[in-house]
C-alpha cells in the first residue's frame, strides 16, 4: 500500500530529469549508460492444462537510455511476451523487470498503470486504433487518462500528428478512412502523446508494404535521434539495419 502510493511521485521526478536531459541532446542522440530497462532471469510460463509453455525461459539483459534496439526472433519465440513485460502489461512468473529503475514486481495494478502511463508508448502491428474515434481523438486518449486539459490535449495531439508526419486533413478521419501507413502514423502519434521516454513497437511494419514500412522505421529513427529509447520487436531481419543494438531470441531464450 505504502509502496504503491509513493511510487508515482518517484517516477514523475525521474521522468522530469530524463526529459530535461533529452532536451539538451537535441538532434544527435547519444546512448547514455543509464539502463532504462533491466531484465534479470525473467521467466514467463503459461500453464495450459497439463502442459507448461516456457514463453520466456530465463531472460536477462539491459537496454540503455536512448538506444534503438531490435528484438529479433521467429514467430512464437517469445518476443511479444517480452515486450508486454517491459510495457507493464504482463508480469513475469519469476525474475525481475525494472523500468526506469522501478521494480515492477513491487507494484499493484494502479502502480503498473502509473509506470506505463509515464514511461511507455505502445505501437502495434494491427495499429489498434479505436475505430469509433477520429485520428485526433485517438491521439488524445492517453492524455485523457493523464488528466490533460481539453484545450492542451487538442493542441498537443495536433502537434504529435505533425511530428508523425500525418497530413493534417486526416486529423478528423476515422481509422477505416485511412491507409495502413497513415493509421500507423496515428498510432505513433498516440504513443508519443504523453512524451514517454520509451517507445515499444511490436512488428510495426508487419501489416505494411516495404516502402511504407521503411518510412515508418525512418520515423522511429528520427524519434530515437530526438532522445526516445526505441525497442522494436520483429521477425524481419531487414529491420536490423535501423537499430544500434540487436537482441536475438529463440524459444524463450537470448542467443
Amino acid at each position, binding site marked *: 500500500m505504502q509502496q504503491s502510493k509513493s511510487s508515482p511521485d518517484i517516477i514523475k521526478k525521474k521522468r522530469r530529469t530524463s526529459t530535461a536531459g533529452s532536451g539538451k541532446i537535441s538532434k544527435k542522440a547519444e546512448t547514455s549508460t543509464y539502463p532504462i530497462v533491466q531484465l534479470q532471469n525473467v521467466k514467463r510460463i503459461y500453464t495450459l492444462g497439463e502442459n507448461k509453455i516456457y514463453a520466456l525461459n530465463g531472460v536477462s539483459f539491459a537496454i540503455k537510455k536512448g538506444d534503438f534496439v531490435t528484438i529479433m526472433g521467429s514467430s512464437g519465440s517469445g518476443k511479444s511476451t517480452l515486450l508486454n513485460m517491459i510495457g507493464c502489461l504482463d508480469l513475469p512468473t519469476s525474475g525481475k523487470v525494472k523500468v526506469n529503475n522501478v521494480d515492477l514486481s513491487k507494484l499493484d495494478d494502479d502502480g503498473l498503470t502509473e509506470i506505463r502511463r509515464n514511461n511507455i508508448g505502445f505501437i502495434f502491428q494491427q495499429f489498434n486504433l479505436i475505430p469509433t474515434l477520429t485520428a485526433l481523438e485517438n491521439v488524445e486518449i492517453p492524455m485523457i*487518462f493523464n488528466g490533460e486539459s481539453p484545450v492542451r490535449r487538442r493542441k498537443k495531439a495536433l502537434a504529435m500528428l505533425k511530428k508523425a508526419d500525418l497530413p493534417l486533413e486526416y486529423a478528423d478521419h476515422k481509422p477505416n478512412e485511412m491507409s495502413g501507413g497513415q493509421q500507423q502514423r496515428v498510432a505513433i502519434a498516440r504513443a508519443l502523446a504523453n512524451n514517454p521516454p520509451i517507445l515499444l513497437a511490436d512488428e510495426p511494419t508487419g501489416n505494411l508494404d516495404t516502402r511504407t514500412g521503411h518510412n515508418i522505421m525512418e520515423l522511429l529513427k528520427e524519434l530515437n535521434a530526438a532522445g526516445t529509447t526505441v525497442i522494436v520487436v520483429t521477425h524481419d531481419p531487414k529491420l536490423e539495419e535501423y537499430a544500434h543494438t540487436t537482441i536475438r531470441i529463440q524459444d524463450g531464450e537470448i542467443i
Partner: protein
Amino acid sequence: MRYELFIALRHIKARKRQTILSVAAIGIAVMILMVSQAFMAGFTQELYDKTVNNLPHVVVSPQTGDDYIHLYKNIILRVNNIDGVIASSPHLTGEASFKFKDNTKNAVLKGIIPAQEDAVAHIKKDIVKGNFDELAYSDKSIVIGQKFADDMQLELGDRVEISFPNANPMSLKVIAIYDTGTALDESITYTSLQTAQDFYDTGDVINGISLRLADFNRDREIAQMIKNDGYNAAGWSDTNPEILRTIAIESVSNNITIGFILLIASFGVVSTLNMVVMAKIKEIGILLAMGARKSNIRLIFLIESGLLGLAGALLGTAAGVVLALSIGGYPLPQGVYGLTYIPVLVRTNDVIIIITIVFLLNLIAGIYPAQRAASLDPVEAISTR
C-alpha cells in the same frame, strides 16, 4: 469522470440499435410502473374521497360505564385545543321507529348542531332537496336520505311520526333530503341536538363528539390522546378497517407485479451491458495499454448503465404520465364502482421516486459487467480480434 463520460457516450452512440432496445425495455417497464402507480394513487384518493373524507376521523364516546357525556362543553373545548383537530361536532344519537301513512321503518336518529356537523362530515354538499341549515332554527324538523324517503314515500314538507320505548313520541317535518349514493341514505336521519334531547328525554347531554382532523392519518394518535384524558375515542381506521384493508391488498399485489417488471428490466440492462463489454474487449485492452486504470474502465461501464437507466426512466415516466392522464379523462359506463371516470392521480413524488429507484437499480445492475470489464487481462484483451 468527464473522460469516462466521453467514452461511454461514444459507445452508446456507436451501438444505436442495442441502445434503443435496452432503453425501450426499461422505458416500457417504467411506463407500466408509472401508469399503475397513477391508478393506485387515483383509486386510493377516490376511496378516501368517497369514504374517509365524509367520515368523522375520530369519534369521542362516553367514559366506560356511562351512557352519556354530561357537561360536554368542557370536553369539546379540550379536544378543540388539540393540535390537528380542525372541527368538532357534538351529537346525541339513538335509534327510532319512523311511521308515515302505512309505512314504518327503524333508523338512526342523530341530533346535531348543523353547522358543526357539516364542518366535520360535509353533509351539505349531498343535499338534493330543501335546506339543511333550516335544522338550526326550525324546531321539530328532520333531514332524511333519498333512499329512506323513497321507501317511506316521504316528500319535502311531509311530517313523519317518530317513537321509541321510553322516548317522547313526536312528529317531525322533512326539511331537506340528502343523497350520498351509499347505504347511509337508508339508515341515518338528522335532527337538531335540542330535538333529539327532547325526544330521548335526556336533558342537556350528548353521547358522542365527531372530530375532523387536518391529517386523517393521525386518527389513532389523536384518539389515543383523548383516551388518555379518560374518554373513549376511536379513529376511522379502527372503526372502518375494511377501507385500509382494501387499499393494502391492492398496493401489495401492485408492488409485487412492479417489482418483477423492474427486475426483468434490470436483467435487460445487465445483458445489454455484457454484450457491450464483449464487443469492446479489444478496445478495453487498448485503453489499458494507453494508461487507463481499472477504475477508469469500471466507471465507463457504470456510466453507460446509469445513462441507459436514466434515459429509460425519463422516457418511461414521460410516456407513463401521458398515458395515465389520457386514460384518466376517459368516462366510464354508469355504475362501475359508482365512478363516472377512471380515477388517476399523478403525484410529483411518485415520479421522482420512480426515476431515482430505476436509475439506482440500473447502476447496481451495471456493477457486474463493469467489474468484468475492469478485470480483463490487458494482454489477452488487446490480442482479441
